[in-house]
């Protein structure tokens, strides 16, 4: 088993095929989208492949150390050009192919007009623990 992060971006990913802001959908389309995401997670719980899912607020700040005894420096909110993560799902699956298959399904969540959004999701493998047997 290997863990993968399925990363969803507010900004920074290539544009989706059906790229319509959510507040331009109908309320029913919003509900259908939410339901699709929930059922997807529920199904992965059922197959034993779900680890975690979280959504992030778009509000954020960059912070860095500014020397002893000084308050940290902050920068932000992020400029429009910067990459902005919307949320993630962590899955634990048998293969990279399975991770791609699931990411593809998640990207097909319905959007405006009930059509799949075809949004880009980033799939990132976790670095795991070193194996016990190496020779």
């Amino acid at each position, binding site marked *: 088993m290997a863990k993968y992060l399925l990363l969803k971006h507010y900004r920074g990913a290539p544009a989706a095929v059906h790229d319509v*802001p*959510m*507040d*331009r*959908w*109908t*309320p029913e*389309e*919003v*509900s259908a989208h*939410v*339901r699709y995401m*929930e059922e997807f997670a529920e199904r992965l719980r059922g197959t034993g492949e779900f680890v975690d899912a979280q*959504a992030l*607020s*778009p*509000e954020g700040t960059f912070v860095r150390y500014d020397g002893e005894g000084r308050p940290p420096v902050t920068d932000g909110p992020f400029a429009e050009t910067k990459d902005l993560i919307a949320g993630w799902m962590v899955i634990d699956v048998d293969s990279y192919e399975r991770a791609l298959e699931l990411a593809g399904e998640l990207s097909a969540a319905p959007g405006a007009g009930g059509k799949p959004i075809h949004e880009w999701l980033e799939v990132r493998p976790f670095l795991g623990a070193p194996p016990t047997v190496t020779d």
Partner: protein
Amino acid sequence: MDEALLRTLTPAVIGILVRRGAGFAAAEDAVQDALVEAVRVWPGDPPRNPRAWLIAVAWRKFLDAARADTSRRRREIRVEDEPAPGPGATADDTLQLYFLCAHPSLTPASAVALTLRAVGGLSTRQIAQAYLVPEATMAQRISRAKRTVSGVRFQQPGDVATVLRVLYLVFNEGYSGDVDLAAEAIRLTRRLAAGIEHEEVAGLLALMLLHHARRPARTRPDGSLVPLAEQDRTRWDTRLIVEGVDVLQAALARDRPGEFQAQAAIAALHADARTAEETDWTQIVEWYDELVRLTDSPVARLNRAVALGEAESPRAGLAALEGLDPALPRYTAAAAYLHERDGDAVTAARLYAEAARSALSLPERDHLTRQAARLNAGLRG
């Protein structure tokens, strides 16, 4: 195996151990160990007197731990095997535990965790699940909290207000995971109210009961939020409403105003309206005035503005919003709502979308997005 009974007995047994000379931290550990053993043993061999069983086993656990500790430190055993008869547990013991677990030296998160464990009798695992943190993190939070209060004398009188804040925090966390924190908060507040005559304890209990009564109507089966005005009021729990109103009236009769009583009074006025249109907004505004007077809280002012929008006019509500900090949580959502009531769908749609971006929870964000979507769909025609 009656888990509810077990958990009810927890604070009293801790109190008894403390009276016999155990420190609070050691007593609390011993009782947790005894609870674990009860869960294991009781189903096959239920005790005739569960309370006496728990006291005996917890005391034994305490002695075992004290001996292990003592021998580790190569000191003499100073604890007697047979405890002096001593005073039995009193209602005061439980009350003292509430005070200790909400001690002002604790951070809110620590006070909440310690209260749920020592007063509520929940396991560390259950508390960790309820707050979605790893069990080891919660265990550490609890043991640090116990260290923090280790120097506090058990019998020291505490401040009811700090206890109420902790219980309010637990209630507001609502429901996640296996433990229903709202129901747990009500159980703990009920017990507190039974042990102490205090109008704000009653006020908080009433507030919890009246809000809990609406819970069945507050979300749709798919988890989406239903605003108060759109809730199916036949699904409100009338038994809880009746109890909440009774508790509140008894509290108000004491004529010592407080913020929880004021909030409960607002909830009671909503509960009293059979339809959203029958809501007595004028009285609600008066209670918000009272709440602002008592707390000077910007959140109360924000809610007052929304109520004023109903009682007088959306314009009056919008005027009341002016002067408040737009960074306040739900400020933009309130402004969106008032603009919609005022007939300005374009501004409202824009503000709902903006509010969705700064929402504090996923259900709220989805709700606000749907509101923006609904208005935009209407504008498209």
